[in-house]
Each structure stands twice: as structure tokens, then as C-alpha cells.
């Protein structure tokens, strides 16, 4: 799904090589999201992952915030789920961090509405899904009534 904002999203910030360039990426890992404490664990893990990939402070903040929104969605709306981290690498060598947030909840009946700012079926602000899309470079979601929800987001290191 292409968005007007996405081209500008990819072009922010100074172009500089990732700090961790050349180092081996951490191993992929998965974290359960069943409790409030799990949400904090996910945040810590994602923060550490952004540092390992070599993101600057603003990108770290973007990715951890997006992870927090998506993990909370899975916890609140999906009745719990899983956040998996892995480290894609483009042929050019550019490194990224990919989050896969899965839940087996009721799914999202109206995805377009759920991506609209201010739309919420819960107690949040209704910025979680659309906000996470804006904070990341790539965003896909698979969902449907009764099918649970899988959100995959990627942010690439600026270089």
C-alpha cells in the first residue's frame, strides 16, 4: 500500500554509514506478549536491536515507539501475541530491522478504518496502526475477521 507520506519518510536524516556496518547481526528472536511486563521486555529488546543495527537516536526512538504501539495492539486487541525480530540485509549491504507482530485475536474487520488516525475500538488514541506505518519504512498487514492479525514492519538503516 503506497502512501503519499512514504517517499518523504524514506528520505529523512543525514546519509551516513551505519555504525555497526560489517558486524554480524544478532540472531533473530521472538518475544511473547501476554502481560504488561512483556511489553516492557519487547521495548528493551527492540531498543537493543536498533542499537545493534546502528540506527541513530531518532530512528531508535521511531522503531521502539512503533514496536510499542504494535505490541500493545496485540496485547489489548489480539488477546496477546508474539513479537519477532529479524535482520534483513539488502543486496547493497544496507541493514534493517524487521518486526513481525502476530496475534490470534478477532482480526481487524475494517483495515482501512483501523489505519485512520483517531479510529479506535479500545481505550487508546487510535494512532497505533497508522502511526506505526508512518514510523517505519515498510509496512504490511494480514488480517481478517476471525483470522488474527500479522503486522510486518521494517526500518532500514540510513546510509
Amino acid at each position: 500500500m503506497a502512501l503519499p507520506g512514504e517517499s518523504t519518510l524514506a528520505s529523512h536524516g543525514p546519509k551516513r554509514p551505519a555504525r555497526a556496518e560489517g558486524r554480524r547481526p544478532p540472531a533473530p528472536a521472538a518475544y511473547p506478549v501476554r502481560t504488561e511486563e512483556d511489553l516492557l521486555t519487547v521495548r528493551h529488546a527492540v531498543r537493543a536491536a536498533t542499537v545493534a543495527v546502528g540506527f541513530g537516536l531518532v530512528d531508535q526512538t521511531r522503531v521502539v515507539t512503533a514496536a510499542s504501539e504494535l505490541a500493545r495492539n496485540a496485547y489489548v486487541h489480539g488477546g496477546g501475541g508474539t513479537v519477532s525480530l529479524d535482520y534483513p540485509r539488502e543486496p547493497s549491504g544496507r541493514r534493517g530491522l524487521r518486526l513481525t507482530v502476530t496475534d490470534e485475536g478477532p482480526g481487524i474487520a475494517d483495515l482501512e478504518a483501523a489505519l485512520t488516525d483517531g479510529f479506535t475500538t479500545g481505550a487508546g488514541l487510535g494512532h497505533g496502526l497508522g502511526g506505526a506505518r508512518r514510523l517505519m519504512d515498510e509496512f504490511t498487514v494480514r488480517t481478517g475477521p476471525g483470522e488474527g492479525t500479522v503486522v510486518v514492519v521494517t526500518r532500514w538503516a540510513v546510509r
Partner: protein
Amino acid sequence: MNGLRSPGVPILRLGDVLVTGLLNELDDRAAIAFTEELTERISAEGARGVLIDISRLEIIDSFVARTLMELTTVARLLGARVIVAGMRPPVAITLVELGIELVGVETALNPEQGLAALGWRQAPQPLEGARRGTSR
């Protein structure tokens, strides 16, 4: 688990202003406990202003943003003005991209400027007064 425990940041009183802060690891329970404790203190102590230092928050997601907005509204209904101070620049950038403007929440660059906005002024150093004080 004790749901009524304070979130760990004391709420200090300076005249009619309450000064406190938020810890980075704010969960649902801590947010509710914090809001309750703060509103009780506003009411009990007749506070006219509240300064909340958020410089320790490494992220503000929509949950924390909602907590800040609700807390500000509740305090305002009780007659107190809330100023949120010390937001980290990457947090501000991320909040805007997230589409959250913290409508209705007053902010200050740092606690000092927040306190000034709430009516506290840094007095000139009372050199003479201090000397008098020590000599007596």
C-alpha cells in the same frame, strides 16, 4: 501485586505547585496509580500548578500520550494548570510522525522554564541577605 503503589517518583510541593516526574517504564497500573495520587494531592493541598518532568521518557507512545492528556484534563477540572517539561527531541519528532500533538497539554523545554511559567522566578542571589543570615 499492589496496584496502589506509587510509580516511584515522589510528588513534591513547592508553595502551590506540585513537582513530579514520570519514569520510563510506565505501565497501565502505574499510570492509573500516578493519576490517582496526583489528583488526590492537587485536591488535598489546593495546588494551582503541576510540573511533570518527562525527561526520562525514552519514548512516548499513544498510551503514555493518553495518560498525559487525561491527567492534564483532570487536573484542569480541579483548577490546576499542568506543564509537562523536558521532552527529548527524538520523542517530539516521533510524536509528530505518530500524529499525536498532545492537544491541551502545555509544555516547557525544561523544568526550570516550566516552573517559571507556573509563576516561580529564580530570585537574584540574596548575597546580602545570606550574609546577614549567617552573621546573626
